[in-house]
């Protein structure tokens, strides 16, 4: 049929490709950024800064790992940011106002996330709504819902010293007055686990297949609808986990916030090599991409730029990452 589908084999692999392609470049960018901030700000060169970078990285990384799956099906999930706040509010509300044990509140956060994932998945896979529109709607809905359920007030999960505050030590423990960010250990484990899921299980395989060519996947007898929905469930599940990490790191969660978190996560995933057009991506790359965002987020104030600048720069970085993806595909096609 279309002659232009053809591609001739044997594009030479460059050194960068062999070292992991975009992932490698992103890692260099992370290191370069780190060195840059270290040089230009003495205050940045402190252990506490390092810990605070990691503090910020948890919820963004978790969201980014989750949203990588819808992205790889050539979709997107915009509801993760406000979703995170909503799940955290609901969990915290049950703990502080209804005396639920902490673990139950955490479970509710995650289950709520999974539930929203199912809703998003159904809207996209069963009802054929454009992913960005469907999840934009659920983004607004979760924002309203969280606020309504808790009655419009900010919620504080138990403090570290308070009863039920044990969950905060999942991410950070104090030893001899020094904060040790053990959360990063969990992040590494999750990255390994999800890399396995992406590359060695049906879920990952079909996620990529759907993003690569949904019709062909369907014709191969794969239950495309199920796996398409599942990608959004993963996204929701990780938004739920992100909610827990967010609650553990920050003192109070305010209703009505959370818009914009999704940009950081999606930006991280795309910088890390997850293709906007679906079908390709990696979890380790996503992790590296997230650190570009986190470094900017924590580093910019150190060189005198406010959080508002960070918002602008994140937007521009996202565009830049997508342009790189587009140019790469253009080059591949030629």
């Amino acid at each position, binding site marked *: 049929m279309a*002659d232009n589908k053809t591609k001739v084999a044997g594009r030479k692999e460059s050194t960068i490709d062999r070292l992991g392609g975009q992932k490698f470049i992103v890692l260099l960018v992370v290191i370069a950024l780190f060195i840059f901030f270290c040089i230009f700000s003495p205050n940045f060169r402190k252990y506490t800064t390092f810990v605070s970078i990691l503090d910020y990285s948890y919820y963004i990384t978790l969201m980014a790992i989750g949203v990588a799956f819808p992205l790889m099906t050539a979709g997107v999930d915009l509801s993760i940011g406000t979703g995170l706040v909503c799940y955290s509010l609901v969990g915290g509300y049950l703990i502080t106002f209804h005396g639920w044990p902490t673990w139950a509140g955490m479970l509710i956060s995650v289950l709520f996330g999974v539930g929203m994932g199912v809703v998003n998945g159904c809207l996209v896979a069963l009802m054929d709504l454009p992913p960005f529109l469907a999840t934009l709607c659920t983004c607004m809905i979760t924002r309203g819902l969280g606020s309504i359920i808790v009655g419009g007030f900010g919620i504080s999960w138990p403090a570290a010293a308070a009863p039920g505050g044990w969950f905060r030590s999942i991410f950070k423990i104090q030893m001899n007055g020094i904060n040790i960010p053990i959360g990063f250990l969990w992040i590494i484990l999750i990255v390994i686990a999800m890399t396995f899921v992406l590359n060695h299980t049906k879920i990952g*395989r079909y996620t990529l297949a759907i993003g690569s060519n949904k019709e062909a996947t369907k*014709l191969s007898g794969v239950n495309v609808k199920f796996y398409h929905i599942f990608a959004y469930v993963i996204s929701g599940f990780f938004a739920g986990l992100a909610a827990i990490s967010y609650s553990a790191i920050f003192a109070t969660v305010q209703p009505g916030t959370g818009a914009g978190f999704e940009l950081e996560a999606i930006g991280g995933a795309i910088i890390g090599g997850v293709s906007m057009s679906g079908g390709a991506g990696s979890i380790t790359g996503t992790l590296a991409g997230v650190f570009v965002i986190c470094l900017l987020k924590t580093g910019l104030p150190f060189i005198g730029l406010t959080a508002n600048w960070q918002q602008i720069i994140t937007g521009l970085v996202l565009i830049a990452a997508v342009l790189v993806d587009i140019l790469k595909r253009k080059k591949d096609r030629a």
Partner: protein
Amino acid sequence: MGEVILTMKDIDKSFPGVHALDHVDLEVRKGEVLALMGENGAGKSTLMKVLTGIYKKDSGTITYEGKEVEFTNTREAQDAGIVIVHQELNMLGHLTVAQNIFIGREFKKGIRIDDKKMNEEARKLFQRMNIDIDPKETMSKLTVGKQQMCEIAKAISHDAKVIIFDEPSAALTETEIEELFKIIRDLRDRNIGIVYISHRMDEIKKITDRVTVMRDGTYVGTLITKDSTKDDIINMMVGRVIYEDPKTESMVPKDAPVVLKVDHLNAGKMVQDVSFELHKGEILGFSGLMGAGRTETARALFGADPIDSGDIYINGKKVTINSPQDAVNNGIGYLSEDRKRYGIVVQKSVAENTTMATMENYMKGLFIDKKKEKEVAQKYVDSLATKTPDVDQLVVNLSGGNQQKVVIAKWLTRDCDILIFDEPTRGIDVGAKSEIYKLMNQLAADGKAIIMISSEMTEILRMSDRIIVMCEGKKTGELDISEATQESIMNLATREIE
């Protein structure tokens, strides 16, 4: 020849505006190769899609292994042992060969996909088929021919009892076709029923046992291959029209001026160093197999894809073409092979489509003069005999042939001197086909220069004054119609290039 394994009886299927299948019968036996033949649009592919559950039949029965069946999706058909090797490649470009072959039924080790075993099985499969493909290679890096082989490997790996090949040879080189035939014979000897859809008469004679012929969505009849001649089959396929009616000599005067000269055109990998000339009043046929780079040449010439190097001269003057706009301004019109995607805006009316390329002629100040627009559209509807209730009709409601006429009208309003027809009769029924031919001949007689890309040999031989043959992105030959034969063209189209 074995017992009957599959019977389709009285199959009926309509789409809005088209009666695609009109009570069609088909019978496949174990250990035989059944050819399913018919012109483009005769309903072969539709029939197979009904069989494998992609389309739902309106009426009729399908009996498979003695039981009446109705598949609702390809998975069910596959599980029952009926698989189809599609005409269009259904590959997942980002995944590897082995991952493609076993998609939907991966080997597992616990919850883990056993890629090692999949690679191993794929390697064994290729060994059995005697072809050399690395199962770990990424699919999109293979050539079209190799991708096709993977599709076939996938079908074989299903442990199928009936395999349908839907024009498998279209993209293959001659050696690859030989390999394919070896594989098919091997399958036949293992008592598998095979349906082979093709246009190529020599292949039919070579590989098949029986031939079932369809025409315009109806069942015509079935012949035993070895007892029938090529003419028997052709007569059944075409019925009333004389099928082979080649032009014997060029209709172009010797001194006709060159309107278009393409000099060493390069564009991507599919257009390498292509040079040719086009004369006033000439129909220049572009022949070649799928993936030969003909469409790419046309698209580059039209500015739809970027040109890497090379010069284009129109009426002796060098021109720069960087976009379709430039091409149109230089008097080139392009009728795409894929009308629905590239030719028409289906949700718009006949009038709006007709004036698409010439909006500025229908402006009254800032506004569109809809009255004038409709008058012009009506004029072309009349002169091209387009069948439409009125010019406000949405193009989506017209038949393929009439849609094509709307596209032609679009370029005629622009008064283009050079027209590129890419597969002008694809998906168009026989009657409308000859009208399009008449129209093209008329245009050429009026002094337009036409490039016609076609995969149908008969169309090339019937319409062209001169023929350019391409293979793997290169021009491999140029033939005057008086010296061109099916064989000489095919020879050039499959030539191995060093």
